[in-house]
């Protein structure tokens, strides 16, 4: 049954960007304050689930032509890659380091290699959650 969902879809279009923005904020916040890859990934996937609720599965697949199994694989690859990267500097597996760098607009920032590992966690969480939900939602 095709139903009239104008209110839900309009609100989704606005709220989606607030949730995505907040998930990115939480993701970058994770080093010193509550947040990090896992909760940021969950929040991003909840935004995409909201999109799935407001529109149907085919529309979302057309908007986001991504196979989320590949996203999971890419996340695992990034996470293993950060572990392997420490071998190039004669350090044990998964060693982390950080440094301070000056940027033109943002000023001085602390850059940690733990962030790259967190990107891997983020991609794995988004990939697995959306794979599960899309697989369950498909067969009816």
């Amino acid at each position, binding site marked *: *049954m*095709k*139903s009239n969902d104008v*209110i*839900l879809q309009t*609100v989704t279009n*606005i*709220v989606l960007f*607030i949730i995505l923005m*907040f998930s990115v904020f939480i993701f970058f916040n994770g080093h010193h304050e509550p947040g990090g890859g896992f909760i940021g990934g969950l929040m991003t996937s909840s935004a995409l689930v909201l999109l799935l609720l407001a529109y149907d599965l085919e529309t979302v697949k057309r908007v986001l032509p991504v196979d989320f199994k590949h996203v999971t694989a890419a996340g695992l690859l990034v996470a293993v890659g950060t572990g392997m990267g420490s071998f190039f500097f004669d350090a044990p597996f998964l060693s982390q380091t950080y440094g301070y760098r000056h940027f033109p607009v943002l000023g001085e920032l602390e850059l940690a290699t733990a962030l790259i590992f967190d990107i891997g966690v983020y991609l794995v969480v988004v990939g697995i959650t959306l794979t599960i939900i899309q697989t369950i939602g498909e067969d009816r």
Partner: protein
Amino acid sequence: MNADEISSWIISIIVLTGSVLSLISAFGLIRLPDIYTRSHAATKASTLSVMCILIAAFLFFAVGEGLYSARILLGIVFVFITAPVGGHLISRAAYHTGVTLWDSSIQDQLKEKKRKQRPSSRS
């Protein structure tokens, strides 16, 4: 009275307003007869109460510690956008699954429209 005392009075009044509104909303959930009037009570009063409490929390940290939390402002905007839509969707789903109105309801304008629409959507 210095500025700290005045601000703490204002903040406590806002917190009390929010909690009393939340209590009124809970009473409305218990006392009102059917789902539509209940969702009326649950959406409006509790949205305003949550926003009051969040505004008070924002003011508390802004005045007391000089911490302007953008997260709380974003939360206020978010609750203000989403809570009424949640109430709308719940009562809409209730209407479409055939939950009856309260006995003393006088008119139901959506009923005729739905009956007129039904043959075309069935075919």
